[in-house]
């Protein structure tokens, strides 16, 4: 007598448990479409066709190293001013302070979050994992432009990278 109802209730519970895990890809897709959490596209964009010479956008760079990896990591310039649509290259210097070889991955985040989808990277060291030998240092290249469709009220865009250690699983 009670079993049919009980099974339905159990099914609701199981569905809600599954729903929790379904939220993860849903959230990622939602944020990728809207750029809400400052995540940028993880593949190269093609160049813009127009350059808006009337506007100037200040682009700031932040580089943070996670405590898991004893490297130094810094942009060569902290700030550049660009016209929307104009392609720029900025190099980031990394150095492995230890004497053993390590692999790192840079994870980008754009602030304000709404600007993320207008930050177009044509080439970026963050697309791939970066190996360094012990004591080695190198310059890593970022080539980008700001989409001219960036909302007019946005004058400054900050791109922040955090460098994490990649450990083979």
């Amino acid at each position, binding site marked *: 007598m009670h079993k049919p*109802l009980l099974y339905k209730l159990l099914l609701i*519970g199981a569905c809600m448990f599954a729903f929790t895990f379904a939220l*993860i890809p849903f959230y990622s897709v939602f944020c990728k479409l809207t750029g809400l959490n400052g995540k940028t596209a993880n593949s190269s964009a093609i160049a813009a066709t127009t350059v808006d010479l009337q506007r100037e956008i200040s682009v700031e760079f932040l580089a943070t190293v996670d405590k898991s990896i004893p490297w130094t990591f810094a942009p060569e310039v902290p700030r550049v001013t660009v016209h929307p649509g104009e392609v720029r290259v900025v190099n980031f210097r990394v150095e492995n302070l230890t004497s053993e070889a390590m692999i790192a991955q840079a994870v980008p985040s754009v602030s304000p979050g709404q600007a993320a989808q207008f930050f177009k990277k044509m080439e970026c060291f963050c697309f791939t994992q970066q190996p360094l030998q012990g004591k080695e240092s190198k310059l890593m290249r970022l080539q980008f432009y700001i989409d001219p469709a960036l909302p007019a009220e946005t004058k400054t865009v900050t791109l922040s990278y955090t460098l*994490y250690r990649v450990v083979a699983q």
Partner: protein
Amino acid sequence: MSTNEHSATAHTDHDHAHHDHKPGGGITRWLYTTNHKDIGTLYLLFSLLMFFIGGIFAMVIRAELFQPGLQLVQPQFFNQMTTLHGLIMVFGAVMPAFVGLANWLVPMMIGAPDMALPRMNNWSFWILPFSFTILLSTLFMDGGAPAAGWTFYAPLSTKYSGDSTAFFVFAVHLLGISSIMGAMNVIVTIFNLRAPGMTWMKLPLFVWTWLITAFLLIAVMPVLAGTVTMVLTDKYFGTSFFDAAGGGDPIMFQHIFWFFGHPEVYIMILPAFGIVSSIVPTFARKPLFGYESMVWATSSIAFLSFIVWMHHMFTTGMPVTAELFFMYSTMLIAVPTGVKVFNWVATMWRGAMTFETPMMFALAFIVLFTIGGFSGLMLAIVPADFQYQDTYFVVAHFHYVLVTGAVFSIVAAVYYWLPKWTGVMYDERLGQLHFWCSLVSVNMLFFPMHFVGLAGMPRRIPDYALQFANFNAFISIGGFLFGLSQLIFLAVIFKAIRRKGVKATDQVWEGAEGLEWTIPSPAPYHTFETPPHVK
């Protein structure tokens, strides 16, 4: 409580009550019992124990905050205290107390002989002591108990937590299973075991509010289970749900947690609405005003609870559209809640009121819960929330709705139904003393928190700026007094269990109506074996 002795009335009322099928004597009686009254008693006593343990943790917090600077405990231990205080009070005290009340009352209110799934009932209770033993045992481990707050935000609970995290996760899994089974039992009982003539719109409001609460529990406790599972795998098994290094996002933790968390706060208040809706008509000697609107208000609060979760996250950075949506949807909750408060007031309007202890607690609930509701409205205003976020103003808000709301309603319920459970009237003089001591001290404790919060004192920090010293000393004194006042409650319950008091009549209260008041006091071990007919 009521079942330690054979009751004389039970024999006359039920032909076959020569023996009442209690499982063996001693401890096995309680271990093996499938009787809804036994299990209700176990839940209530367990919750009382947890209320005092969580209270001791709160006393440690208030003792440390009595003066600025660090006096008694280290910051890490202070964090463990705030974390455990929250977890124990939410999952160990308030929720089991409501489940205990549901066990005792739902079958008696709808004319059912027992809960629908008695063995599962036994199981869902006996999981709880194990769950909380596991949780509390972390206090004695290297690295101590979880310290990430009861909201265990990632990465605090993943990257920066101690090894007790695994125990915490397992404890939450267990209590989640217990809650879900309890909720299923309530739903099946209400759907299938109503007495003939007990139609949906005749259900007592306590039963209605619990039915809706049970659905909320089944919907969101699995989400909590999923959240702690992700914390577990992030910490120990190399996944990256909440870790940006692996492509995850710590903000996502907050989305998932509060998708559980907001319905959870209504799980802790809807049964309280049902209790107050039972008590106020009895002592106003008038039927409840607006029964149907109460049912609809409860349902709409339950629905709205699923679309407001981001109001906990206004400062995490979100588009203005989202801020506006969650601000307005949050404020919308004030409408059905206001309907309830007006209905209670209208019930009392021109009633022949008396002020026994349950009524006093119910009246205090209505006033003080409304204060907590108003500070909730203030917090819902996005620009204001940027100021209030993570201050003592928030602490004041949720303690007004949870202590003077949920806890006061539970205390009112215990006073109200204790004569039915034990067969004797509780000590009214002690009850009134308990009420007045609690009322004064609880407001000394929580009201000034509004002011220090507005002035910028952050929550969850063991130290504070000197300007807050006087207020905090006053708050701490209120806290100690409130803690001590609860010892009076303990004395009242102890006396009633020992059967010290005037014998209660079947109806107990002059104005009480409902099936549970038609059976003898104390309620016999088995009731409504032949279903009553409800006209």
